[in-house]
Each structure stands twice: as structure tokens, then as C-alpha cells.
């Protein structure tokens, strides 16, 4: 009997070391709210995440946020009062706020774009001549330039600014059904498709920046397809496909790269084995010195 209690005690001690408790602080500001997920130990860095717009933060609490906390990164989540893309001036306001309210060096801030909300970050890189106070940029499930025929947004203007459950597009209905069968239904129903521009992007300062950049794309993601990222990758400083393994790294989550599956938009956040299959690779890139 004594031995059993002893074993349980050891198990409890071990579990307490393994699990990372989520400590969340909230703060309101003018046009946004901040949810700050903290670690107990001194963090290696901060992921400054912009609002995914398309879905709520709960979705990220399944795999994404616990993973980065476990790796000892704090997550600062910006949640906007309105579902829209932010201007570069607004991003500046947020950046200043975060830098002033954190004791960590700006060298440790990783600007992170999740889902279609990442467009805000990519536009910011294009609009700003000089960017200070961040160490690197990471986007996952983010598209950029949709000015070509064939893509979902170009061909279906009626999809924009709607929740999936409100879309009446006949062709899209079978896709909605497929998504509902494969993912959490309430999450899918609430998925919001923002007003993505199908205008040709004009290049301004993309070529100026030398910030290390990680781009993660799901192979069968119709919302943020690889084709929509090409103009960005082609024009970002030091980010041609030939230097991908260095400063600018591109991960296509696909079977052809020996991932478990060809990733859909939702797999990037909800696939059961996404941590081992994908996030570990991202973490390796973050640990790299440039």
C-alpha cells in the first residue's frame, strides 16, 4: 500500500514539472484588447500575435498557445474590437504599447501573423520603410496577393465579409459540409471570411527589410494558398526560393515534404498531431541564429 502512495506522489511531482500552467492577463486599449499568456519562468521570447480575424482565439488554445508556452515563449494576443485589417499606423501604436509594457528586449519580440489576420503584418512590412523593435516575423495560414483569376476570393466575391454559416454560394456549400464533417462544427460555423482585397498589391518597402521571416503554408488551403504568397516572397529582401533555408524559410505543409497530410487551413491549428508534425519545425527555425 505504501509503495502505491509513493508511486502516485512521484507521478504528481513529475506531472507538475511537465505541464505548463496557462497564466492569462487581459488589458483593454483604444481599438484593441490584449490577452497576455505568461510563463512562470523567464521567457525566451514573446510571440506578438495579431488577431486572426477569421476565428476566435479559443481555437489557438487547443495546440498553438500551449505549445509555445511549453517552449517557454510568452504569447501576447491582440484582439481587435472590429474584424478588419489594421493600418500600419495602428500596428505602430500596438508595437509601441507592447514595447513600453514589457521588460524583455525588443530583440525577443516575434511578430506573428495567424490565418488571414497575418495580412495585416505583411501589409505592414510593405508599407513601412524602417521597422524597429522586433526580431523576426512569422506567418502561418496567411495569403497576400489575390489579384489573379481562379482563386477562391477572385472568383467568389459573395463570400467576403461573411461567416461561413451565412454563405449561400452553391458551390461552397459542399465544401462547408466537408469542413463540418472534418472539424469542430461550432468553430467552422463561426469562421469569418474578411474582406480580402483582390487588387494588385503595389510594392513599396518589401525589398528593404532584412528581418528573418518564416512562412508556413498549407498545401490544400484555399483561403491562404501558396499562389497568393508568391509576389511577397519574390519581393521580400533575401527571400527568394534559393535562400529559403537561411534567413527566409518557407514551409509547405504537404505530403510531398513528408508531413502526415496535405494541410488544409484548419489543419494548421486543429490537426491532432500538428505539434509533432509541424510546430516543432517552426520552433527549430526560431532557435536558429541569423
Amino acid at each position, binding site marked *: 500500500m505504501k509503495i502505491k502512495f509513493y508511486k502516485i506522489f512521484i507521478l504528481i511531482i513529475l506531472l507538475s514539472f511537465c505541464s505548463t500552467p496557462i497564466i492569462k492577463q487581459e488589458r483593454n486599449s483604444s481599438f484593441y484588447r490584449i490577452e497576455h499568456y505568461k510563463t512562470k519562468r523567464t521567457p525566451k521570447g514573446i510571440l506578438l500575435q495579431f488577431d486572426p480575424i477569421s476565428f476566435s482565439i479559443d481555437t489557438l488554445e487547443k495546440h498553438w498557445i500551449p505549445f509555445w508556452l511549453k517552449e517557454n515563449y510568452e504569447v501576447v494576443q491582440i484582439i481587435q474590437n472590429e474584424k478588419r485589417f489594421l493600418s500600419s499606423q495602428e500596428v505602430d501604436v500596438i508595437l509601441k504599447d507592447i514595447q513600453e509594457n514589457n521588460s524583455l528586449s525588443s530583440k525577443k519580440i516575434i511578430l506573428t501573423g495567424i490565418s488571414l489576420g497575418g495580412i495585416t503584418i505583411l501589409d505592414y512590412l510593405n508599407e513601412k520603410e524602417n521597422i524597429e523593435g522586433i526580431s523576426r516575423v512569422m506567418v502561418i495560414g496567411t495569403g497576400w496577393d489575390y489579384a489573379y483569376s*481562379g482563386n477562391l476570393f477572385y472568383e467568389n466575391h459573395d463570400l467576403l465579409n461573411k461567416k461561413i454559416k451565412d454563405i449561400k454560394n452553391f*458551390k461552397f456549400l459542399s*465544401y462547408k459540409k466537408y469542413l463540418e464533417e472534418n472539424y469542430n462544427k461550432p468553430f467552422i460555423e463561426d469562421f469569418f471570411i474578411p474582406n480580402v482585397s483582390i487588387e494588385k498589391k503595389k510594392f513599396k518597402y518589401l525589398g528593404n527589410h532584412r528581418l528573418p521571416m518564416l512562412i508556413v503554408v498549407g*498545401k*490544400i488551403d*484555399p483561403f491562404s494558398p501558396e*499562389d497568393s504568397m508568391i509576389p511577397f516572397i519574390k519581393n521580400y529582401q533575401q527571400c527568394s526560393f534559393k535562400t529559403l533555408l537561411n534567413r527566409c524559410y518557407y514551409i*509547405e505543409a504537404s505530403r*510531398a*515534404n513528408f508531413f502526415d497530410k496535405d494541410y488544409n487551413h484548419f489543419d494548421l491549428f486543429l490537426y491532432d498531431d500538428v505539434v509533432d508534425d509541424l510546430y516543432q519545425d517552426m520552433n527549430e527555425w526560431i532557435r536558429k541564429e541569423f
Partner: protein
Amino acid sequence: MVLDILMGGDMKNFLLSFFTIILTTMSCISISPAKGEIHHPTTRDGWKLTLEHFSDKDAQQKFKRKYPVILCHGLMANRTYYTINGESSFALQLAKAGYDVWVLDLRGREEAGPPSWFFGEKKYDYSIDDYIKYDVDAAIQYVLEKTKSDKVNWVGHSMGGMIAYARIGSYQESRIANLVTVGSPFSFELSTTSLRLWHKVGSCTTSVFPTVPMGSLAKFNSYMCVDLTPKPGLVEILLYPENTDKEVIKASQRYMITNIAKPEALQLKTALELGEFYSIDGKINYTENLKNIQIPTLMVLGRRDHLGFGYTIRLVYEKIQTKDKQLLIVERAQGASEDYGHGDLFMGKNAPKDVMEPIIQWMNERNKL
């Protein structure tokens, strides 16, 4: 009795068991490709090609299409790609829509006399440049003579589209009225792990043999009940198996896959290394010359395609100068039954509706008399 006389009992039993195992493991295929009328035009440099002709006289009378169509297969394939699904194959679908259809076998394919590995008159010594310079020219010339037309429609899958891009862009080819490319890459800057592995296998093989014997291996595999193909990710680069009938996959291994000539493999290797597609002597940058393309062009992309990637098709879309250009993405989100891969674009379970129908519709709009 004869076996008993010729050899001892143990040996006879062994041989009988061996052949019984072989026969029981041999796989039968119930699918047979559609058959048309065979023609053999000859290129200016002396190679025989094959053109298989399909037409439906009633449909031709009814619809009166402006130009005939040439269908061209991709690398490592032959014309069976367009006929393998029998009645629902693309060649027959086009014929039913009133087109005069000519399905092309480029040089080195079996029907017109396969090359030999080491000896013989024709060997595996041809490059993609030869397809562009001689085979496309001979095929168009032959079809124009037979149909009394002045132009053709060209539909190319994978490399079959690439050689049309190169022919139009770099050789000022004016006899192609409308171009449809399906899963055709033309820029190779980003390579996947699978593609790099294939590339290594190809390099190793061609250092010993004059060919990458994919056709021979695929044919052998098609006779086996047990699938001997390596790691699934390596095969999925060629097609999405979930979207293709198993019988069609077996049939394609037996009838469709062909060997790759060493210079072809080398040319693609260079393209992967340089990111752009050059002639084998390095003098012509085919990718750069895409800007010379001025004819109506439809580019079809399977969302899951691991060879004709979305990024590369988008780059072609940006580079060609014609105003009448359209990109069609075959994906679930836009009503297709599946996110299509590379080979299943024409061989997929629902390809007639998801892929062929929109292509034929696009062609119909540009083939009115």
C-alpha cells in the same frame, strides 16, 4: 510426364510451385484504353511519332468547331493518359463535343518503335528540346494537312504544356490558336523533399543507364498483387491516389508510364537547380520567353498538385502577355469533388465533370465558326 523425365521429382515440384505463385500473384486489369485510328508522322530528324485520331462525325456536323485539337501527354507518360478512362476519357469527351481529336505520342514511345538502351538505330539520346523543335512541329504539320485547317488547339498535360509554352514563346509558333495547359510548371525554384529525392534517384540511375527506367518498373509493379511502390509521399507527387480508381492506377502503370531519356532528366535537373527552364545547351531561356505568348491561354491547376505547384502556375500566369488568360483551380472550395493532384487531373474519379467540362466550355467559346 515430360517434366518427370527431364528432371527429378523435387525439381519439378519446385518449378510448379514457383509458377503457381507467380501466376496467382499476377494482377489482372479490367480497364482497357479507348482505341482510335493510328497515324505515324515522321519528324524532320527522322523519328516516328504516333497520332491517334478520334472523331464523331455527327457531333462534328452538329457543333462545327473551328480548329482540331492536339492532346499531348507529360514526361514519363504516353498518349494513353488521355484515353485510359475509356468512354469518360478526355479524348472521347472532346470528340463527343464535336472536336477532331489527335492524341500525340512524343518520340521514344512504344507504339512508333521504342528506342533501345545501348544498341540500335534509335536510342534514349533525346532531350525536351527535341520535342519542342521537331515533335511539336511534325504533329501540327500532320494534323493541319489531314484536317485542312490552318491552326490547332493544343492541350498539354504537365510537360505537354511546357513544350507548347516553349514552342510558342521561343520559336514564334503561330499555328496554335488556343492553348490549354494542365498542371504545367515552368519555374522550379521551390523544390519539395519528394522532388529532391526523385531527382537523386534519377541522377544515380542515369549515371549508369541511358534512361530512368520508370516505365519498366511501373509495368513490373502492375503485374504484382502486392504494391511495390516506395514511400507513399513519393508516389503522391505523381497523382492523388484517393482521387483515382485503383484499377486506373494499375492500368496507368501497365500502359502509360514510360522511361525517361537521360538528356530529358538532365534538362529537368538543370531546371531544378537554376529555377528556370533552359534549352540543354543553355542558349535559350524558355521561362524568360513566356512573355512572347499572345494567344488565349487557360492554365489548369490542381490544388494538391505537387508538380505543377500553385506558385509556379501563378508565375506563368503573371509572365505571359496575352489579355485572354485564365487560371482554373480545381479544388473542393470551388465545387470540385476533391482537391486534385497531378495525374488525377484527367484520370480522377470525377475528372469529366470537375476538369474536362470547364476546359471544353472554355474551348467552345474560342472555337466558334
